[in-house]
């Protein structure tokens, strides 16, 4: 017997994602991932000032609210060979790192946790036992008394008793897949609320340097915030002290709440270290330069591809090579003039929006045809996974000491082999561990910034190439970064001071894209294969694995220009 299980909307993600699973009994035989929303941001970008592009591109996503702005800025700087001051590099590193720490913690508690944590079960917890558990898990975190948990539980009970469950309504509470004891559930629910408060304080790092969050401001050629220790209207000692305080708050929460909670929860779900891997191929672009982005050896996260879990061999990645990164549309709602079978490098992108799906309202997609607004990007024809697991594997393979130590000690604590990383829970744990590495690195970048200012360097902006009159008539560049969700790059073509072409291939396109021309599944699709659903009406298993990727759904928009003379490809989350 085969039937189709459909989950739409996938909630607790960014964007619009639909999963269809073809069942064989209670086992998922094939899974299909569909992005169901397009906007067309890159066609909107055409003809505009490249210095403005970051603001438009940034609105691709308001969750990872920094990354598309940053990738855009870097693409323009790459095209113009535009260097930025060291202070600007350090401030950008701090802002990117703050995005990681903020985003990963929010993902864990507010988007992913409810797949593992049964909110209603927390009502049955013994506050005293919860206090003991909390103090065992995290001996130094202050919010751990019996009274504290009794209060939290009482609050929750009133909320539930009032009968208006709001965001907690209709979830799969009581499903046998939930394995945490009530005390662990109560602790996790309390930390859900604490994380909500914490995040709005630590996000102020973006506000200090970028004026607001979500959607802080950037500028091509540096950062918009000036440094002057003698001014009340610039980055001064007071502002820097605030930043130091935020870094400390971030590291404390990561060390004392996020890491211990992840390991504690993971310990109850060891079966999820055995499933949900998918492809076995991983890719990173690299990021967090100590000096310049163009000195790859100074990047904290290295660039490379790992194939078939073989950590002994790292393949190089060339973002400009025609035959390395290509996009396919065989199962996407676009058409290529050269036929649906070819793969095109982003610079040669040529595509047209072509919705051929069922007329809404529909109940099922035609998965043998086109079924998603996402394209299928491939590296040398291979589907690869990007994101925290790819990065941790790359750091581990490269013998980065802290990564080695964190991975090995976590596996030892959980009594698991290294292969356990290649799984749903391995992906979730990798996200937590990389958060610790990045949060710890923030202090070093901050110290360098202070030392630089102390040495008299307050430069934050390079004005030499600001005026378009100083640019070559033709230029093209790629802005890459490691976004929290994985390898991200924007490709830009500049002609006579205006954007001639703009394309973004985003992490969730790599992970959530549909099958390609050879019917190779994307990372989401591959990871769901073989999952057994306890109850197809309550597919919590699908949510667990999909959420482990932290979806941020790209919508790929590919449109002809108004004259129809030239086809341009644009791709939007």
């Amino acid at each position, binding site marked *: 017997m085969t039937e189709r299980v459909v989950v739409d909307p996938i909630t607790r993600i960014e964007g619009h994602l639909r999963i269809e699973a073809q069942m064989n009994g209670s086992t998922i035989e094939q899974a299909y991932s569909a992005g169901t929303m397009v906007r067309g941001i890159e066609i909107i970008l055409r003809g505009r*000032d490249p210095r403005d592009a970051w603001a438009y591109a940034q*609105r691709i996503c308001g969750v990872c609210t920094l990354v598309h702005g940053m990738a855009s800025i870097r693409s323009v700087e790459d095209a113009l060979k535009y260097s930025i001051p060291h202070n600007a590099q350090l401030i950008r590193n701090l802002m990117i790192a703050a995005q990681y720490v903020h985003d990963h913690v929010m993902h864990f508690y507010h988007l992913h946790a409810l797949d593992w944590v049964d909110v209603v079960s927390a009502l049955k917890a013994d506050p005293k036992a919860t206090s003991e558990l909390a103090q065992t898990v995290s001996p130094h975190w202050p919010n751990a008394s019996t009274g504290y948990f009794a209060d939290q539980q009482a609050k929750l009970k009133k909320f539930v008793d009032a009968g208006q469950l709001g965001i907690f309504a209709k979830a799969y509470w009581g499903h046998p897949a939930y394995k945490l004891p009530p005390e662990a559930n109560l602790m996790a629910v309390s930390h859900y609320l604490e994380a909500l408060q914490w995040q709005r304080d630590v996000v102020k790092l973006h506000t200090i340097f970028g004026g607001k969050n979500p959607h802080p401001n950037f500028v091509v050629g540096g950062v918009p915030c000036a440094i002057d220790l003698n001014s009340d209207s610039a980055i001064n000692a007071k502002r820097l002290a605030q930043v130091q305080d935020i870094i400390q708050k971030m590291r404390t929460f990561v060390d004392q709440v996020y890491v211990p909670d992840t390991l504690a929860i993971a310990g109850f779900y060891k079966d999820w270290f055995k499933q949900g891997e998918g492809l076995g191929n991983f890719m990173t672009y690299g990021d967090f330069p100590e000096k310049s982005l163009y000195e790859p050896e100074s990047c904290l996260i290295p660039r490379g591809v790992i194939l078939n879990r073989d950590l002994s061999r790292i393949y190089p990645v060339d973002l400009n090579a025609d035959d390395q990164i290509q996009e396919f549309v065989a199962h996407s709602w676009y058409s290529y003039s050269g036929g649906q079978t070819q793969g095109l490098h982003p610079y040669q992108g040529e595509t047209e929006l072509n919705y051929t799906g069922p007329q809404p309202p529909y109940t099922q997609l035609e998965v043998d045809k086109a079924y998603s607004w996402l394209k299928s990007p491939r590296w040398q024809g291979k589907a690869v996974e990007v994101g925290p697991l790819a990065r941790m594997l790359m750091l581990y393979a490269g013998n980065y000491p802290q990564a080695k130590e964190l991975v090995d000690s976590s596996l030892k604590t959980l009594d698991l082999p290294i292969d356990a990383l290649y799984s749903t829970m391995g992906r979730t744990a990798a996200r937590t561990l990389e958060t610790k590495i990045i949060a710890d690195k923030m202090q070093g970048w901050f110290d360098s910034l202070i030392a630089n200012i102390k040495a008299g360097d307050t430069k934050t902006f390079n004005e030499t190439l600001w005026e378009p009159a100083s640019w070559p008539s033709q230029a093209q560049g790629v802005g890459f970064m490691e976004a929290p969700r994985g390898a991200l790059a924007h490709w830009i073509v500049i002609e006579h001071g205006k954007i001639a072409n703009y394309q973004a291939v985003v992490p969730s396109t790599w992970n959530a894209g549909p099958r390609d021309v050879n019917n190779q599944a994307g990372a989401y699709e591959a990871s769901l294969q073989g999952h057994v659903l306890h109850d197809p009406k309550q597919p919590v298993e699908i949510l667990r694995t999909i959420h482990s990727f932290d979806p941020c759904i790209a919508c790929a928009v590919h449109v002809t220009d108004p004259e129809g003379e030239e086809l341009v490809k644009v791709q939007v989350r």
Partner: protein
Amino acid sequence: MTQFNMPTVGEQLRENGISRRAFLKFCGLLASSMALAPSMIPKLAEALEKATRPSVIWLSFQECTGCAESITRAHSPSLEGLIFDTISLDYQHTLQAAAGEAAEQARDEAMQANYGKYVLIVDGSIPLGNAGYSTIAGVSNLDMLKQVAKGAAAIIALGTCAAYGGLPQANPNPTGAVAVADIIKDKPIINVPGCPPIPVVITGVIAHFLAFGLPALDHLGRPKAFYGQNIHDRCYRRPFYERGLFAETFDDEGAKQGWCLYKLGCKGPITYNACATTKWNDGTSFPIESGHGCIGCSEPGFWDFGGLYNPVSLPSSLSSQHVVFATGIGVAAGVAIAALNKQAKQQAKQTREPVNVDQLNREVQL
């Protein structure tokens, strides 16, 4: 307000351990952010306490989730508690635990139980170019909006995309994106624009609606309490503008001393929002304070204002190198902008045409 057989907000707050004092402090902050007289604080407190937790259904269309992220950033004493305890957020993709069929059931049940009474929040624009451009559970955005709007007491169009079409509608509007008000004509709509809106403005508007019903709106459907003031008029850098002192680059002496960002393209003079007074993220800063000009994100059509870094009162084809003479005419131009802006906005009210810089520039030149 509609009565429910549910605990009131006041009861909820007390049950949840929020003290009367903390609650009044919150009301005080709320009143000041809503520009209410201090004498209104007890009335606000009373109204909030009596209000029950109305159902809120939140639909996300062509959006980036920045608006939903923004509401999670809302500070203020006990604000988090208030958000959770003031409304019953029955459908919200980013936060809700249920997914798929269960999520849609939650929406259906909330609509049925609260028909005619729930508040509908919409973020994101609605594509009319093709029903397949954006769907939820296989249903087009247009159909879902019409279906849910039907039983709503009022609609909050959250963010510039829902309020005015926003980024998806920017030239050449590839998906035929439109605003909520372009589709729904028979319900009160409160536009809360911004990209995203300021966190406490979102919660402030919700609180205002619960306490007093519909707020007074300007000609663009925005609550006057938050969008009644021009950013340039309220900007702490305004005195430098008056004295003709402008930052020329992002880290020159002027930038360091907090001089006016007018010549770096600041859109403060044509933007109405609370950034300069309320500021962002617990009053930490706002774009101009952190050195970047305002991009005008709460105004219709701001994405087509003609360049982030082009000064508003000058032809957009000129770059900042060529605007040295602007120093002298700065004050006069500012006054002219204010008058013309009013005029253009008046016109916009009738035609719902976005006010853009080109228009203003043309008029300045005339």
